[in-house]
């Protein structure tokens, strides 16, 4: 599944000021029992967001919220950009993590570094992970915290972020992934265009390593 992403987005930024945020924290294990791709948003950061222990299928509306957690603060309501610290998304490969971020409303995550599998999973689900230098991320944290309603303007086509004061920052994004995001392309369909190459590889490999093709 691929989703069409925005080409340009101006939105409120929510700062999550801790390093090594793991996917267990992004979406705790009990919610992984779902066999669907949707509905994970209310349980995003469940153990930090609520004061009780959440269970799958539970209505979160009546649960006690943790007023100290950043996403529960009124100034960050409606945020679509998450600002994070180094090694964001480490740990488990669960794609439920980007599903939960997307379902909550995040389209962009900015951090000095991401864990590999999470970074890859984001692109499959219409989330743009942006890597920026640590000093710049640090400066963004200060700006976001200093000014309620702080917004960033992210342009995927131009690969720029415009800060509140008008400063423009360029960011890198892999050309193929950018192309897929902008066009909402289906990876599987793209790969199947090369099915002859796959069959040719298999034929060659079968000669070279026949044991890989023998069934038990």
């Amino acid at each position, binding site marked *: *599944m691929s989703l069409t992403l925005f080409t340009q987005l101006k939105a409120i930024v929510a700062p999550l*000021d*801790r*390093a*090594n945020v*793991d996917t*267990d*924290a992004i979406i*705790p*294990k*009990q919610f*992984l*029992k*779902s*066999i*669907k*791709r949707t509905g994970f948003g209310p349980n995003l950061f469940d*153990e930090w967001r609520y004061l009780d*222990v959440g269970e*799958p*299928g539970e209505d979160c509306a009546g649960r006690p919220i943790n007023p100290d957690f950043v996403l529960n603060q009124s100034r960050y309501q409606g945020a679509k950009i998450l600002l994070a*610290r*180094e*090694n964001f998304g*480490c*740990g*488990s*490969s*669960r*794609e439920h993590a980007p599903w939960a971020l997307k379902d909550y409303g995040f389209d962009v995550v900015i951090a000095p*570094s991401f*864990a*590999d*599998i999470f970074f*890859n*999973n984001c692109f*499959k*689900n219409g989330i743009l992970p942006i890597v920026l230098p640590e000093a710049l991320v640090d400066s963004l944290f200060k700006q976001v915290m200093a000014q309620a309603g702080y917004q960033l303007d992210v342009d995927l086509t131009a690969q720029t972020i415009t800060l509140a004061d008008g400063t423009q920052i360029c960011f890198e994004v*892999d050309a*193929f992934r950018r192309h897929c995001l902008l066009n909402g392309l*289906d*990876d*599987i369909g*793209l*790969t*199947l265009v*090369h099915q002859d*190459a*796959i069959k040719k*590889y*298999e034929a060659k*490999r079968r000669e*070279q*390593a*026949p*044991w*890989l*093709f*023998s069934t*038990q």
Partner: protein
Amino acid sequence: MAGKTLYDKLWDDHVVRQEDDGTALIYIDRQLLHEVTSPQAFEGLRLANRQPWRVDANLATPDHNVPTTSLEGGVDGIEDPISRIQVQTLNSNTREFGITEYGMGDVRQGIVHVVGPESGATLPGMTVVCGDSHTSTHGALGALAHGIGTSEVEHVLATQCLIQKKMKNMLVRVDGQLQPGVGPKDVVLAIIGAIGTAGGTGYALEFGGQVMRDMSIEGRMTVCNMAIEAGARAGLVACDDRTIEYVKGRPFAPTGDNWEAAVAYWSNLKSDEDAVFDKVVELDGSRIQPQVTWGTSPEMVGSVHDRVPDPALEADPVKSAGISRALEYMGLPPNMAIQDIQVDYVFIGSCTNSRIEDLRAAAQVLKGRKVAASVEQALAVPGSGLVKQQAEAEGLDQIFIEAGFEWRNPGCSMCLAMNADRLPAKKHCASTSNRNFEGRQGAGGRTHLVSPQMAAAAAVAGHFVDVRDLVEVVQ
């Protein structure tokens, strides 16, 4: 031209198509499936009216949700209705698409990363993927193995390929000889302590040196399993005689002429002498002490003889805040001696440490001893039905039971608490699993990662203790 690394060789042999922008289509020899990360992938196939490209390249087993208490009633006997639906969904999907599944009640069922190597479904030289980050485990056999997300599970089902960019090469060389009582888990925790939880991000991480060469295949699996905790998607160890001996005779292993051809191919599965790595880290294996994690990231680790750090002494403000937050969550004061940490729960199991060797190592410590009265629960959870059978044939189950452990059925269990085995809030657990993240073993639970020997020793003492002080350990 410089020689190739093991990763270079594995990569080169699986390139179906190289694109100009650096991405490549990589062929996948084996996909392992479990119930948690596959339902949406099968649903995707159905929605697009696609069929699996190569049914025989897939093998499935349920592990995360399965109960470890009674298996009576099979799938229908799972009490939690949501867990039950997920396991039933794996059954119906594998049936619909004709994929082999070792289901509940089958003696071959178990944790997917134990089952793969044990059945020979993982072979040296293969590319192996699974919707689980601990797929790095299979690199212990000289295979290129890494975790993927559910979209990629669907992609592999439909095309037998993945779109990948080549990673960089990193070598961690552990030379010397381990001290008695120090094992593979201590080695990998020490590595993570040295390079950090993101030290291997972007790299294929090969483990080499005398310590790795001397290590059993099960031990190498423990080390590769936690490559992901150092940020590396794939861990690797060169294929050698031990590897070939391990694979021989397993159900999926080649036979006859194919065996001879395979062995010839596998003998080249090592980094060339003149291979160049982008990063090399060296550790002296003879200096590694038994390890215990004290925080909420695997890099927050030290020797059992250390003290918990003091955040006030950390100059980096982000790190200092991280230590403070971790100690608050763990309920530990700065500078506390690790040996003074009381243990309430003990968990021996998980894809890191639930193989026969792990159970033997723990049983050796437990033999003739009792779990301390202050320990509320001690679980021993074999990694597969076959591991359990072997352990019982050796009488290990009786040693665990007589010591006061519960002897359970195979599954992921309290490593991530998706089934009923959960660590209660604020309780400290000596765990042989791989992640000490907040809430990992149960909401509010406090995990300390250790080796099987150290978990057994903590069970007996009721607090962390150097296993060598408790028992004379034979290496």
